[in-house]
């Protein structure tokens, strides 16, 4: 299982990466493996305000439909439109081309409350 050291994590299996004050969000390698083949991803439109821990979207696999929760609150500024045509990217590159959204955080310090790689790895064992 791949858990990159430089990312922060939630216990609900989302990852967050700081990029010039904004935060890119996806689901972890563990999550994509547990979900199985992802067939549909529902994401909010750019401009949507989200709360920390609030619903961010849904990932549908051949097994189930799962909610994604926002690791931090703020405004969605970018959405991965490629996933509409190629949801398999979520399985192939969960930390790369399978990212979900970029959020402009209302309080960047919320990131500090998230798990680091070691703590997330421990939570999945």
């Amino acid at each position, binding site marked *: 299982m791949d858990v990159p050291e430089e990312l922060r994590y939630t216990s609900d299996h989302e990852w967050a990466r700081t990029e010039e004050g904004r935060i890119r969000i996806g689901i972890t390698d563990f999550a994509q493996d547990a979900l199985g*083949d992802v067939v549909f991803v529902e994401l909010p439109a750019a401009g949507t305000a989200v709360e920390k821990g609030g619903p961010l979207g849904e990932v549908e696999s*051949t*097994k189930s439909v799962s909610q994604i929760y926002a690791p931090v609150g703020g405004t969605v500024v970018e959405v991965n439109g490629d996933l509409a045509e190629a949801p398999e990217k979520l399985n192939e590159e969960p930390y790369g081309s399978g990212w979900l959204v970029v959020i402009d955080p209302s309080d960047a310090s919320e990131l500090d409350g998230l798990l680091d790689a070691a703590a997330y790895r421990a939570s999945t064992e």
Partner: protein
Amino acid sequence: MTPPETETHPTGPLPGGRALSAPLLGREDEPTLFELSSPGRRASSLRTTGLPQWGADELVPASWLRTEPVPLPEVSERDLAAHFTRLSHRQYSVDLGAYPLGSCTMKYNPKVCDEAAARAGFANVHPASPPFLVQGWLQVLCELEEMLCEVTGMAAATLQPAAGAAGELTGLLLMRAYHAARGQDRRKVIIPDSAHGTNPASVTLGGYEVTTVGTNARGGVDLDSLRAALDEDVAGIMLTNPSTLGLFEEDISEIAAAVHEVGALLYYDGANLNAILGVVRPGDMGFDIVHLNLHKTFATPHGGGGPGSGPVAVSARLADYLPGPRPVRLEGGGFSWATPELSIGRLHSWHGNALVLLRAWIYLRLHGPDGLRRVAEIAVLNANWLRERLRGTYDLPYDRPVMHECVVSAASLERETGLRAIDVAKRLLELGFHSPTVYFPLIVEEALMIEPTETESPQTVAALADALVQVAAEARAAGDAASARQAPRTTPVRRVDEARAARRLVATYDQRP
């Protein structure tokens, strides 16, 4: 000294409900009706009768007429019947053999119910007939409502919902009406993490938000997690008992008390009612709303798209909100229709799937109270017997006696040999059985959810257990799952690519690559 003989099972013809003798001819794709079409061919040709004939343009205004003919397939009755018969020979069905699809309760449906439902006096009645012409039908519907209330321990029922999910939506709308009448606008409905996928979907459709509660170490609802989630904003909780793990909810009295204390309602998802029929009643456990799957517990047609039937029974305080019109007994005898005063309205354009309701009425009358209890007892016995036979071969999470179904896990098998639940399911098809439900409930890794039901004989349950043990033994002997990954090799359609089917949907035959 010779080693002790291991238990062996004959591989020849077994009396169990295996479908290995099914006539599955050939491997070619069945052409679509469009591909069978031949220009000008008709299903029937009318003889010249000497009656005057009109053209469509004489009867229909020109602006309403098509200029191009509809591209319908042109086939003879003979071609059509052969096409569907060939397709039907490629289906696995309850009438063909054991169908242990957990949670779905794929029981055998007694043919006597079909026979009665096919009688013209029932089948050829228009639903708009005035009550005085359909007193027999109204009596059936009234009595069915009463029997379902007796079985569930509730006060009143509606027969309108057309299936389980429609019943769930009905229940949630009743919940909303109940709270609204008290001037309350509650927003949340609680669902355990082991619940059926339809529950959260119905909650959303009903305009509520889902709050999930966890499962404790014994497979029941985690009471601390539930108490933490309960507040004045909770409209109700949706539960099945037994749960989707096939386990009886031991804390149901505490759960009911805690939920009622905040003014919320308890909804019973009737998917698993088969296990408790005639033994314990949802109403006595404290539930306020119950939906029943007549196509599960009451052995009406199921699979292949139904039609299903999902009546909803409620406690007295919710009776005034039920959908209408309901069949009612008139003072002084006879029957009619009446709509409850605060009815949430119609849930079906007519009176529900009436011929399915009739089958359930017959099923209930055939069994009687003692027979229904026997149904539950044998269903539970079969599931527990099967589970014990699988001990040591598959993992048994939440290891305690089950109700009508057992959830086992292929997690250890996967670690040892790479054999996954999906491979077990596919290999089982080659051994003549329909697969159990796999990967559900979601909280069990590599889950196989097996529901033998009471309609399978001990010989069939034994043959099914042998097949499940055989699949695991083959992988363990080989040290890998390579062979099972190739399964099914003997079915008309082999392993399908589920992910590709969902990602690249081809909805019509002419879009096939």
